[in-house]
C-alpha cells in the first residue's frame, strides 16, 4: 500500500510539474512569478527522493521524507507551508503501513493545522487554506456518508476548486499578494490553485486505483 502512497505522490508531482507555467503566471499577477517554479523544483526533488524509499513500509517515513525534501527545495512561502503540512501529516499516521480513507482524513486535518501554525493564516485570507479547508470538510462529509476514499477525494477536489474560485472574490491579507490591497481582487490565488491541483491528482489516482 505504501507503494501506492509513493505512486500517488509521484502522480501529484507530475501534475504540479505539468502546471508549472500556469502557476507561475498566476503568481506573476499577484505575487512574484515563482510559485510554479518553486513547486516544480520541489516535486522534482521529491520524485528523486522517492526512488530511495521504494522499500519503505512506514507511511509516516515516506511523508516525512517528502516534507523534508519540500522544505529544503521549494523555498518561498509555499516551501515551509507545504513542507510543514507533510511533516504534520507524517506525525498523524505513525507507524501506518496502509493509508486508507481514515488516514487521509487525519492527514488533511494535520496538514491544515500545520499550515495554520506555520503561516498564521485563517480561511478567507486568499491562501492555500481557502482550498484546503473546504476540501477537508467535503472529504469528511463524504466519509460520513460512507463514500470510498476515491469518492471522498473527488468531493474534496471539487470543494477545493470552488475554494479557488472563491479566492478570486476576496482581497489577500496574507502573503505577498496582500501588498496589492484591492488590486488582488479578481485573481485566483496560486497556492490555493496548487492545492487544488494536488487534490485533483490524488482523486484521479485513487479512482484509477479503485477502478483498476
Amino acid at each position: 500500500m505504501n507503494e501506492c502512497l509513493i505512486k500517488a505522490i509521484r502522480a501529484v508531482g507530475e501534475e504540479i510539474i505539468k502546471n508549472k507555467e500556469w502557476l507561475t503566471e498566476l503568481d506573476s499577477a499577484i505575487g512574484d512569478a515563482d510559485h510554479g517554479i518553486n513547486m516544480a523544483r520541489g516535486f522534482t526533488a521529491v520524485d528523486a527522493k522517492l526512488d530511495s524509499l521504494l522499500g519503505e513500509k512506514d507511511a509516516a517515513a515516506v511523508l516525512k521524507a517528502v516534507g523534508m525534501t519540500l522544505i529544503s527545495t521549494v523555498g518561498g512561502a509555499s516551501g515551509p507551508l507545504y513542507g510543514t503540512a507533510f511533516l504534520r501529516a507524517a506525525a498523524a499516521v505513525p507507524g501506518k503501513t496502509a493509508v486508507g480513507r481514515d488516514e487521509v482524513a487525519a492527514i488533511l486535518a494535520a496538514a491544515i493545522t500545520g499550515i495554520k501554525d506555520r503561516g498564521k493564516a485563517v480561511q478567507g485570507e486568499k491562501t492555500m487554506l481557502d482550498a484546503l479547508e473546504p476540501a477537508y470538510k467535503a472529504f469528511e462529509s463524504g466519509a460520513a456518508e460512507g463514500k470510498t476514499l476515491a469518492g471522498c477525494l473527488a468531493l474534496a477536489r471539487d470543494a477545493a476548486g470552488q475554494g479557488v474560485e472563491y479566492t478570486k472574490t476576496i482581497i489577500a491579507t496574507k502573503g505577498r499578494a496582500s501588498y496589492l490591497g484591492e488590486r488582488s481582487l479578481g485573481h485566483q490565488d496560486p497556492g490555493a490553485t496548487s492545492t487544488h491541483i494536488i487534490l485533483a491528482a490524488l482523486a484521479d489516482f485513487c479512482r484509477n486505483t479503485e477502478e483498476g
Partner: protein
Amino acid sequence: MKKVINDPEQVVEEMLQGMIAAHPQYVRRVQGFNVLVRANSPVAGKVALVSGGGSGHEPSHGGFVGRGMLDGAVAGAVFTSPTPDQVYEAVKAVDGGKGVLLVIKNYTGDVMNFEMAAELASADGVQVDKVIVNDDVAVENSTWTVGRRGIAGTVFVHKIAGAKAETGAELAEVKRVAEKVIANVRSMGMALAPCTVPAAGKPSFVLAENEIEIGMGIHGEPGTHRETIRSADEIATHLAEKIFADNPLKAGDSVALMINGLGATPLMELYIVAHKVTALLAAKQVKLVKTFVGNYMTSLEMAGFSISVLKLDEELQKLLLAPADTPAFVQM
C-alpha cells in the same frame, strides 16, 4: 527574454561561483550550499550576522559579506526565499561562539524559512536571534497585510549592526542596534520597467510607454498603483513625502540617505533624484550625514529606484561611518 546567461536553471549557481572566483579575498562558499561567508569565517569573539533572501537583488546580500557588515549570506532561487537548511548551514559556518543574528526582510517566505533555520540551530545549542526589516512605506494599511516589506533600508541594518558586532558587543546589543535602525529607516520605490525572472522567461508585468509603477517591491511584483510618468522631481517628491509622513523629520535632525537603483537605472538618473531629495532635506534643515547613490538592493534588470531615509542618533551615526570592507561596500 534577452540576458547574458547560460541556463536559467543555473544562474544562481554560476553567479555564486563567479563571486567566489572574483573575490576570494572577501568570501568563500560553504561547500554544497548556496551560502557565502567571510573568507576567515567563523570570526571568534564576535557576534555573526547572517542575511539573505531570494537572488536577483545583487549586490544584496553576498556583496555585503566582509568586515564591518555581514558574516554570511544565503542565496535562494531568483526572488525566492532560501530554504531553512541553507540558512542553517550559514549559521553553523559563521558562529564564532558569541551567537548569530539573522537579518530578515519581512516577507512571509523569508520569515518562515529563516525561523525554521533558527529552530534547527537553536536545537544544536547555537545562540540565534533575529530582526525583521520592514522599511517600505508603500504598503500602507499594515493591519490588513502581513506588514510592511523589507527593501533597500536593509542595507543600513547590515552596515550598522555589522559595525556594532565588530566592536565585540553581545548578541542582545547587536540586536538592539539593528532594531533601532529598523525603527528609524523608511523607504519607498518606483519602477519604469519590469524585470524578467530567468526561469519564468517573460516580464512579470507590462507598463505602457507613459506609465510608471509606484510603491514597487523588489521581486517584480506590482506596486501599489500605476500612474502617468511625471518629472523626476515630482516622482522623487512624492516618494520622499510618503517617507517623511511616516517618520517625520525636524530641523536639526541628522539622517543618512540612500538613492538605490533597481538595476537598469543609470547613475545619472539616480543623481538627478539625489539632487531633488537632498534639496527637500535641506529645506527641512535636516543634516545629511552621508548619502549613498547606486545599486544596493536591486530587482534584476528592473528600471526604477527607491529612496531610503534613516534618522540617526549619535550611536547610529558613529556605527554608520565606521569602516567596512566587502565586495560591494567599502568605507574607509
